[in-house]
């Protein structure tokens, strides 16, 4: 199968959906001629024109608001938010307006829109351009949240998101834009709420999201070399969350580590680990271990930044200790 970059996969997904459905349009800062600073959207304005690929002023709350209004009245906007850190600027429009319109109107008004943005540290971009803020939106009922972990997921989830009748937030890992993966030529969609089992195993379950899927995969390889068989699961969407696939795996392996790039405290790992502990309690041989990013703003210095996020080595080390039945503090 052909291999394409995550960047190209996103571009294809949006182009295909814009061809299919004339109500889909794109808006954001420098999305047109510039194709975004990451060049993910290059070429779209040439095909669809400036009417459907709209450069906005630097007014995140404003253009999020416009997207909500357009979506409420029959369009399907795809909004580009240049950095996930700017989510803080659009929270009111996203969480007080978009997320609640369907419920508050008793099902009469809905907001079919996609907010595409990114996450991920270790790019030396410092505290305001490196955050992984998906936990914030995952906490708000009415929003769906997708975390593609490769070009394949990026395309399939984006297409599903654009067709979804609700506001969907997609976080791409900005370090992965140039990573290639096999992506079929034929059209496909990835349904929301279906986890992907990347690797089967019997000793321990590694649940990883987004950028951390690769980290878990590498850890699993290291463990395999030592005779430990790890199962690697990517939930792909955290809202809705495919709890069943995760639970089934843990019921089999009896051990689990949950790895995510958001800050550890009050984040994603707590939710997933709690569900496992609650619902697979009598199957567990040891505590579910959580590994998030450190609870510190992301530092600029390369000497500091890299140690704030989980690494394959540390995942593997925690897995070994769990296998040995050690009681330990993973933080």
């Amino acid at each position: 199968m052909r291999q394409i970059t995550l960047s190209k996969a996103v571009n294809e997904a949006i182009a295909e959906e814009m061809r299919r459905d004339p109500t889909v349009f794109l808006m954001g800062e420098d999305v047109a001629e510039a194709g975004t600073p990451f060049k993910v959207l290059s070429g779209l304005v040439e095909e669809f024109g400036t009417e459907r690929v709209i450069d906005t002023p630097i007014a995140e709350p404003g253009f999020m608001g416009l997207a909500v209004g357009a979506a409420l009245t029959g369009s399907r906007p795809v909004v580009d938010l240049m950095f996930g850190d700017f989510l803080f600027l659009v929270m009111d429009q996203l969480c007080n307006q978009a997320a609640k319109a369907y419920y508050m109107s008793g099902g009469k008004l809905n907001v079919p829109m996609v907010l595409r943005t990114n996450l991920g540290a270790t790019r030396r971009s410092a505290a305001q351009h490196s955050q992984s803020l998906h936990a914030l939106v995952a906490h708000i009922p009415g929003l769906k949240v997708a975390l593609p972990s490769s070009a394949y997921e990026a395309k399939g989830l984006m297409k599903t998101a654009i067709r979804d009748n609700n506001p969907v937030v997609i976080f791409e890992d900005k370090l992965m834009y140039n990573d290639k993966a096999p992506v079929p030529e034929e059209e496909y969609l990835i349904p929301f709420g279906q986890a992907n089992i990347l690797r089967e195993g019997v000793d321990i379950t590694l649940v990883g999201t987004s950028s951390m899927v690769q980290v878990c995969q590498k850890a699993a390889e290291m463990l395999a070399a030592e005779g430990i068989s790890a199962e690697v699961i990517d939930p792909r969407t955290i809202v809705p969350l495919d709890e069943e696939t995760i639970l089934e795996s843990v019921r089999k392996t009896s051990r689990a580590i949950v790895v995510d790039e958001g800050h550890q405290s009050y984040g994603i790992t707590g939710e997933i680990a709690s569900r496992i502990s609650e619902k697979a309690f009598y199957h567990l041989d040891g505590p579910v271990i959580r590994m998030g990013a450190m609870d510190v703003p992301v530092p600029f210095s390369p000497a500091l930044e890299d140690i704030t996020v989980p690494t394959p080595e540390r995942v593997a080390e925690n897995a070994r200790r769990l296998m040995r039945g050690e009681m330990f503090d993973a933080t």
Partner: protein
Amino acid sequence: MSPAKKKTKTNIEDYLRMYTQMVRIRAFEDQANQLYLSAKMPGLTHMYSGEEAVAVGICEALTDDDRITSTHRGHGHCVAKGADFKQMFCELLGKEEGYCRGKGGSMHIADQSHGNLGANAIVGGSMGIATGSALRSRLQGSKDVTVCFFGDGATAQGLLYEVMNMAALWKLPVIYACENNGYSEYTATDEIAAGSIKARPEAFGIEAFQVDGQDVLAVNDLTSRLVQRARKGEGPFFIELLTYRYHGHHVGDINRDYYRTKEEETIWKEQRDPIVNFGAWLTKEGIASDEELEKIRADVKADSEAAVEYALAAKYPDVSEVSMHVYAPDDAA
């Protein structure tokens, strides 16, 4: 009264409909206030009484295809845009037959069928929504116009300037209707708004107007002109409507002496009431007799009472509805 419109057969119908609509808003609010005072209404609410000419003058210039966004003080906009009393009262009481199946209440009442995209409990929260509706109209080549209602206090929200900038750049068919009732909760407008409200949209290249918000004909004439121009791509526009709210900021705001005088209230109520003055004009011009107007008021009152009775007796949503409407289903589903 602005004499801009001539007295013709059609106009007579328009005039009487405007009068009726203003009376309907007042009646609705009187009932809502009673419901609150008699502890039959849950939560709290913000009364539109006194500002009727604004909502009616504007909404009478619109069709059902045109959209509006509304505010926390939204009953007036809802009635003026064509909503039905029963479904409105049901909503205010949290009943299943309400416009939002009881899930929205006073602060989120919406009426999709007449183009009311909903009230909003976030001050300024619908400025983006209105502008986005106008963007959709432009993109889809529709002719509809969207009116964004908000108060003088809401002009402090930065969102307004963000969306006005885009509306101006892209010539969107949106009309910003600033209901300047002189107060933002318990604070006078001059204490929270520097410079000139009207100069602000102008600085973004948006044509702006100030109009007497107690004069339904003046409001309607101006809006009608602007709606036609907006349909032709000459928008956006901004209207500042000078008006007054009779009640407190919300139904529980009883002691208002510390922020506005009784005299001020009396002057507005006794000399500038939009319904009384329009009624006087209608009779003076021979368009309607006192008796005809009296009958309109009586009919509306009866209607509103019947609707309240109906809503009080209506049933609450089933508890199973609590987790319905969080997510819209797939089209296939």
